């Protein structure tokens, strides 16, 4: 059997394969209200393989959000570049879905309407939108609230809808800017489970890059954790997590890496305050 045929069998027709991300010597300066220019992060270089799940962890102010903003194409770096599948990023696009810390659902649309709008913007034909929206809402377990307005849902449900909206268009890349940071522990766990499941089911179809400040979350989700320093952010260290999925926090390997990352981050905090 040819390689092309194997690929076709593994992937639904028309579904794009996951993309690679290359971040090359990326740097950005931020302008303080006083007009002073301060570096947010500098000399950031890393590669993410097709279908890999990478988490970016660092103390607040280390430039995680800006890094994701540059990869998403919403912000311009002051130095360096980002390549997706070898091509430089010049602006935002539906090939790089982004989950924000807030769900960012459109309040004038119903839950289903939010997903259908995303599908329309990704040029999914009108006949397929309703069914795909329904399928995705079922996958994130909000299928009983599809006709409600976002404000009628709990924070956790809203973020699950945002996840469905981001994944519904089968993006080759899913970026997450601390997407579970504002949730309570239970809602956060549920989302982590859903994301882990998606990571397993979408192997090779989506590359994940999530920023977080929670070491457990970073290790739980990722194939590789990149640890960033305090401002200005640089890469400090990376951890490869080979633990079997689905993982739990009781996993010995997970627990060990979590505590290592924890120590590293605490060291950063002490360094930046001294």
């Amino acid at each position: 059997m040819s390689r092309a045929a194997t690929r076709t069998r593994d992937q639904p027709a028309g579904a794009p394969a996951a993309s690679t991300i290359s971040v090359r010597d990326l740097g950005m300066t931020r302008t303080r209200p006083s007009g002073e220019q301060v570096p947010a992060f500098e000399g950031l270089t890393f590669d993410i393989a097709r279908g890999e799940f990478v988490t970016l962890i660092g103390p607040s102010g280390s430039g995680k959000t800006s890094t994701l903003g540059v990869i998403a194409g919403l912000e311009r770096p002051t130095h360096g570049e980002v390549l997706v599948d070898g091509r430089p990023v010049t602006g935002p696009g539906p090939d790089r879905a982004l989950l924000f810390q807030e769900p960012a659902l459109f309040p004038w649309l119903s839950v289903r309407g939010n997903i259908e709008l995303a599908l329309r913007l990704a040029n999914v034909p009108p006949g397929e939108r309703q069914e795909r929206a329904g399928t995705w809402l079922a996958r994130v377990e909000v299928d009983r609230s599809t006709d409600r307005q976002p404000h009628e849902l709990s924070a956790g449900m809203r973020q699950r809808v945002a996840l469905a909206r981001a994944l519904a268009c089968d993006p080759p890349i899913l970026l997450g800017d601390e997407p579970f940071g504002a949730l309570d522990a239970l809602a956060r766990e549920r989302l982590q489970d859903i994301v882990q499941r998606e990571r397993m089911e979408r192997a090779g179809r989506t590359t994940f890059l999530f920023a977080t400040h929670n070491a457990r979350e970073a290790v739980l989700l990722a194939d590789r954790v990149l640890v960033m320093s305090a401002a200005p952010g640089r890469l400090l260290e990376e951890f490869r997590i080979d633990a079997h999925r689905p993982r739990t926090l009781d996993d010995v390997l997970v627990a060990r890496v979590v505590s290592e990352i924890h120590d590293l981050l605490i060291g950063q905090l002490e360094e930046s305050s001294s």
Partner: protein
Amino acid sequence: MKRWTSELGPPLLGIAVLVFVWAIVAAATDTRSLPGPVEVWTSLRGGFTDGGFMEATLKTLIRLAFSFAAALVIGTALGLFLSAFELARRSIRPLVVALQITPFVAWVPLAVIWFGVTERAVVFVAIAGSFPAVALATLQGIRQVPPLYVRAGRTLGAAGWDLQRSIVFPAALPAYMVGVQQAWGFAWKALMAGELIVQASGASGLGHLLDRSEDVAAILAIVAVIAVIGVAVEYLIVGTIDRRIRAKRGLLEAA
């Protein structure tokens, strides 16, 4: 049923108290300068059966609808134009603010010179008095769209006109509705002032009728009609649309 009584009860009580106090004061004063509720009610009924109230009310409502619709079209178009072009916004917005602050009565002499003592002059005053509020609210609504929605829209692939149509305009709607509510009130007041001052020959309208009326009972009856129209449009049409938009987005406090 219960909802109706709890919502309409207090305002009805307020009206009842007003009529009661009015009746007492009227009984104690000269009927010619302050007629009581009964005299005004009689005048109101007479006006609607044979005194031309019906025709005047209809004509006035048609003028209001036309002026307000024109103000919405002109104001929205101007607001969109100003929001699209930075230089236009910076040079023209102050002029629109000036128009907004100018009392609409100031337009009457100009309107009469341009259009003569005609119905068109009256409508001009109403439009000139109300479109700036729509233009400014359109501009404000678009500029105040939460950046998060625009960022989310752009990462979903919306750009250019699609971004405006699918994200920016719907997000700007609640702020726009504030301007619409203001504008309808301005249009109504300007229209009344215009009708009252510009006495076009043969023209019919509540303002005209008000100016031609000589006895106080008829004047009060017409003022009552004007007030009822105002409250009806405010609560039943403009307010309802605004409330629906806000309720859908969770912007209303739970009742």
